[in-house]
């Protein structure tokens, strides 16, 4: 799944999955940083989405006037 294609909710879902795994100490320590990196990436994507959404909404709202 390309990073650009994942939806916000899917990203949040995956983050929660990975978090769950970490919390349950499922991954091998060797994979931990990999997982954390993955979550970090997803959070970044979400933040970007949020930022973009906010920007777009602002723009649209400004146009309403």
């Amino acid at each position: 799944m390309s990073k650009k294609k994942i939806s916000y909710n899917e990203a949040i879902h995956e983050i929660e999955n990975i978090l769950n795994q970490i919390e349950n100490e499922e991954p091998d320590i060797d994979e931990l940083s990999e997982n954390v990196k993955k979550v970090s990436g997803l959070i970044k994507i979400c933040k970007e989405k949020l930022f973009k959404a906010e920007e777009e909404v602002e723009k649209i709202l400004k146009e309403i006037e």
Partner: protein
Amino acid sequence: MNDHISLYELNHSIKNELQSAFPNAVWIVAEISELRTHRSGHCYLELIEKDPKNDQIIAKAKATIWAFTYRMLKPYFETSTKQSLTVGLKILVRAKVEYNELYGLNLNVKDIDPTFTLGDLAQRRLQIIKQLEDDGIIDMNKDLELPLVPQKLAIISSPSAAGYEDFINQINNNTNGYKIYTKLFPAIMQGDETEASVINALDRIYEYEDFFDAVIIIRGGGSTADLMYFDSYDIAVNIAQFPLPVITGIGHERDESIADMVAHTPVKTPTAAAELIIDIIDGFYEYLEDLRGQIINTSRNIIKEDKHQLELVTHKIPSVVKEIISTHRRKPQELAQKLKYSLKTYFDDQQHYFSSVKESLQYFTQKQIKSKQRDLVFVNSKVALAAKSFIKSKKHQIEILEQSNNFADPINILNKGYSITLFNNKTVKEIHQIKQGDFITTRIQNGEIISKVEQIKALKHVQKEN
């Protein structure tokens, strides 16, 4: 034949006896039944006394008032009693009892007490009045109503009396010219016949009761002494019960007569009677005039008021109508204004709605984004926490494992003072592994001790145990 005396002797001795029996004059009460005055001025009376129960005469005597005395007594009596000395009166006199052989008994009146007669008369009047009251008729005539216009009058009078003439003149020549009908019923108004004559006249009038409006009894001139007849019970009864109102004008200087008392209206004189009639008619005429004035005023006022009312109404109509029209003329304007206002409000509200929609949008999206941002921060820290706790837990695990390992390390036994014996680098566990003279190495905590075996002892109980 000596046992007789002559009449003269008899009368003379009566005279002497009487003289000695009544040496002085005595006061006598009696009623006058006859009274004559002689040309000479002497007054001859007959005095009687009646049984009060049945009016029977029980005593009678002649009396004389000699001219000289009479000239003094008569005016004294009449001014004191307002009453002439006449038949029927009860009097109290002082008289000398005289007896004349030729003329018999005579009472020579020397003095008279008028107060006695006054008292007697008054008492008689009171008796008559009481009788009339007891009969229940004393106010009967008064209770009759005098007609509004007493226009037809029955007159009881002496035709020749001056008073009658005055009355008729006044009636016929009344200043307003009312037509007043009078009819004379002649009667004797003085002397003994008065009573019967008046009653007779009343009886005649009674026949025309429906025709006449009132009865007028008048008496003019004549002596006041004759008024006594109008204190008669019979006249009073007739007047009181007469079906027409009776007006008396019989004159009374002293107390009114009983006839006056029972009459409908007593006046003093015939002239006053005429005035009374004319006054009554005048009153009626004035009332009639008053009514006339009222009808004139009232009817004109009504027309005037109606006209005024109509005028008011007529004037009111334009203003009312104009008012209503102007009220309504404002109405479409007001409605248009209201429409304009409503529309403005409507549009304003709509515009306002959209700005509120925009605000809501802004608010809700912001809220959503902010909440997501917060979620991310939370996730972030959760990740860090989870990763760190993961590592920490692993570290802990390793530490425990390391400890267990360290615990297992034999070096730890030596540290407690135990030692290991080695022979040929092998741990000596069996006593048979070595023999005397062998060199063994003893390892302790911090070094090795090399020793030569000198003696070997097997411990049986140890063996047993093994």
